[in-house]
């Protein structure tokens, strides 16, 4: 019988392999896991895969793909081999993220109060004030505890040497945390035996921590502040997650039409009349949240919500206008932001970034399009980007035109070296597939990070794009005690 890992030869100078070192030896924290997987037969693997599939289907864990046959529900592909992060590595990640979120939060507080960082010319003012996510309506509004970003899902990757780098800060409405929780349940059902020899730190209490964070930011201190989740509705691709989190926290899942603002206070419409709301965990983007202030054609929001928020009668998580700090252009300034507010060097580095808005950088970008990954500053989900080495000359030409037309809107990065991890590319065989990591950071009275996160994996062979809309899947992610 061939053993699963016998076929696994990830040697490469360009990519860091999570499991096998450059000396072709298994990294110590993966040793037991490899042994266990080597004991499974192909039939074992198939049977367990079937268990997992049934679990996801029954739970209705699906996401919606736009543009294909008016939105088809698909099961989010799940890879059976868990990603393992030893505690020593995790501590660095944790420290780095706490530092980064602290600094970004101070940055937002500054932008919406005194704008010192602009006056000190650390960041060109026009970059911030010209960002489409900067909400000048909120200058002078201070949210409870001074916290703007309550829930973050930063995307981390590892370079060829295995250093963790921040690829993106998602400070608006990051999604995916429900997959993190469900992946763990699925893994425990399919491979209870794998958990035997590892002390895996639990992620299960994330919903309780989220609820606690949301209660901490209640506008007035109360014994039991009323928290609701606000979803755009059943047609949103992350609707499953919204309903899942509401159910796990034991709070109501509301749509815009369930809420009504009266006298600058927010209420739910219930069968027993109007009930006051203190905190809204909103999964509706800024632009859609209040037709009186933002897009008047939005039917997803609540008329008058923003005024209630400005008056301090309700707290929104995340705050309005946080998008200005996760803009891909501002991203390139995060090291300076950390230095400016905390006087520290960043624990987690950025990926090297060129700004098309800077004439020198623009020239470099246009000359090296075939080597770079170019991204639109305000797009997410893997849309609006060009992966240089995989593109055709025509595609590059078309993209170059777009960049020159609106340079402020584009950044470029080297084709990043996402680390690789053994994953099933078909039913019974594994290959090195690129992965990233999205840990979830909660910020209320203090910052806490659930040990683990969502590991996304590019299951299409050779692909570097891990987004679920582009054929990506995910893995259970373990932080283990050393």
């Amino acid at each position, binding site marked *: 019988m061939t053993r699963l890992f016998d076929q696994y030869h990830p040697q490469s100078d360009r990519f860091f392999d999570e499991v096998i070192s450059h000396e072709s030896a298994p990294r110590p924290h993966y040793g037991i896991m490899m042994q266990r997987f080597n004991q499974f037969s192909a039939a074992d693997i198939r049977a367990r895969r079937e268990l997992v599939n049934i679990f996801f289907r029954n739970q209705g864990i699906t996401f919606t793909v736009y543009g294909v046959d008016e939105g088809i529900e698909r099961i989010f592909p799940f890879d059976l081999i868990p990603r393992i992060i030893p505690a020593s590595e995790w501590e660095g990640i944790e420290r780095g993220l706490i530092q980064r979120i602290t600094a970004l939060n101070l940055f937002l507080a500054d932008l919406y109060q005194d704008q010192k960082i602009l006056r000190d010319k650390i960041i060109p003012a026009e970059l911030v004030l010209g960002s489409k996510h900067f909400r000048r309506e909120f200058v002078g509004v201070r949210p409870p505890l001074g916290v703007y970003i309550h829930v973050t899902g930063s995307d981390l990757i590892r370079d060829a040497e295995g250093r963790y780098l921040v690829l993106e800060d998602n400070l608006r409405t990051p999604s995916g945390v429900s997959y993190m929780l469900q992946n763990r349940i699925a893994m425990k059902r399919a491979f209870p035996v794998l958990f035997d020899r590892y002390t895996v730190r639990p992620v299960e209490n994330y919903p309780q921590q989220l609820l606690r964070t949301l209660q901490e930011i209640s506008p007035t201190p109360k014994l039991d502040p009323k928290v609701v989740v606000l979803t755009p509705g*059943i*047609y949103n691709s992350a609707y499953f997650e919204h309903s899942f989190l509401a159910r796990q926290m034991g709070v109501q899942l509301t*749509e815009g*039409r*369930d809420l009504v603002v009266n006298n600058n206070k927010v209420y739910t*419409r*219930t*069968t027993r009349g*109007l009930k006051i709301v203190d905190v809204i965990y909103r999964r509706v983007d800024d632009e859609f949240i209040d037709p009186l202030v933002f897009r008047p054609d939005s039917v997803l929001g609540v008329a008058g919500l923003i005024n209630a928020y400005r008056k301090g009668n309700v707290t929104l998580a995340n705050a309005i206008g946080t998008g200005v700090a996760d803009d891909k252009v501002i991203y390139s300034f995060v090291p300076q932001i950390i230095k400016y507010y905390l006087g520290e060097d960043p624990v987690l580095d950025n990926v090297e970034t060129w700004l098309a808005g800077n004439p020198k950088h623009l020239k470099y970008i246009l000359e090296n399009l075939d080597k770079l990954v170019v991204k639109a500053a305000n797009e997410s989900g893997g849309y609006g980007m060009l992966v240089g080495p995989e593109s055709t000359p025509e595609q590059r030409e078309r993209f170059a035109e777009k960049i020159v037309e609106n340079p402020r809107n584009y950044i470029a990065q080297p084709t990043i070296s996402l680390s690789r991890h053994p994953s099933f590319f078909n039913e019974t065989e594994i290959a090195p597939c690129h992965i990233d990591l999205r840990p979830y950071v909660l910020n209320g009275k203090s910052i806490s990070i659930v040990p683990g996160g969502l590991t996304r994996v590019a299951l299409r062979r050779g692909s570097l794009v891990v987004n679920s809309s582009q054929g990506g899947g995910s893995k259970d992610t373990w932080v283990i005690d050393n």
Partner: protein
Amino acid sequence: MLSRVAESLFWMSRYFERAENTARFLDVNFNLLLDLDSITPVDHPNYWKPLIMVMADPEHFNSLYPEYDAHSVTDYLVFNRGNSNSILSSISMARENARSVIESISSEMWEQLNNLYHFLQSVSPQQVHSDPYTFYKEIKNASHLFQGITDNTFSHNEGWAFVQIGKYLERADNSARLIDVKYHMLTTSPARHSDLVSGSVDIIQWMAVLKSCSALEAFRKVYLSKIDPENILDFLILDRSFPRSITFSICAAQEALWRISGSSSHRYANNVDRLIGKMEAEMSYATVEEILQQGVRPFLEEIEQGLARIGEQLHLLYFAYHTPKIEPADISEALPFTGLDGRRANWSQSQQQQQ
């Protein structure tokens, strides 16, 4: 609970019940035709037109099909998406409503409803024509299973009460419509000579009405073999213990409404409770002789109107809580789904989320 959630539970349940009733009407019609085949051809429009009259919009049907025959009517009532009351549309609406409150219902309920939806997607009209019995049985069983699952996996609190109200208002309305149309047909046919309809063909037709309510056996236990229209009317309208009779359904809906408001007999807390209490009292003290005297049609039409008014008040009280008071004259326009115009109640399209 959130008004929207209550509303979705109500319509989920109502549409599921509607699909079951449509399946029942069609099923019995097919059976009936097997009995009558020797007398009249199966495709005779007399057998099929009433189904459209009771369950859908004849004008819309006529715009799509030239004839009231078995194929067209079945196709229209089972599969047509343009017919908002077809089985497929009803189950889609039930599912849509369930999906929007998926965190409030039990996962077993969702699974059952979802299964039926996918089953319907997989069935071809040809399958239904070649084996109607199995198909309709599948729908009826799915509905029974859903109700059983709901009763056993969903907490019996406010949300459950809205599920009950949806089910029983729909059932009462469907039974009234069925009796209305059958009675109308049988009494206005030119060959009739007696005041009350009789004769062997009519008896078969009346038995079909009973069967479509799964009521034949229960009826026989009460009236032994005396199948005459008067007894049948008495049973289907006024019987207090048979779960598909109109009176039973109204009592059950009343009980569910009381659970929500805390009302009890003689003391109503709101307009819905008042209307249903009044209706329940009228049904309790009515006799079949009085009904015949008043005329079966007017009596049943009054019930249908009463049910529509209850639906409308229910909406205003529990679902549209904050909407400003609407002048009565505007109600039919503002609430196109109440069924006050004699059409069947439908979930308001304006309530459906657009994106």
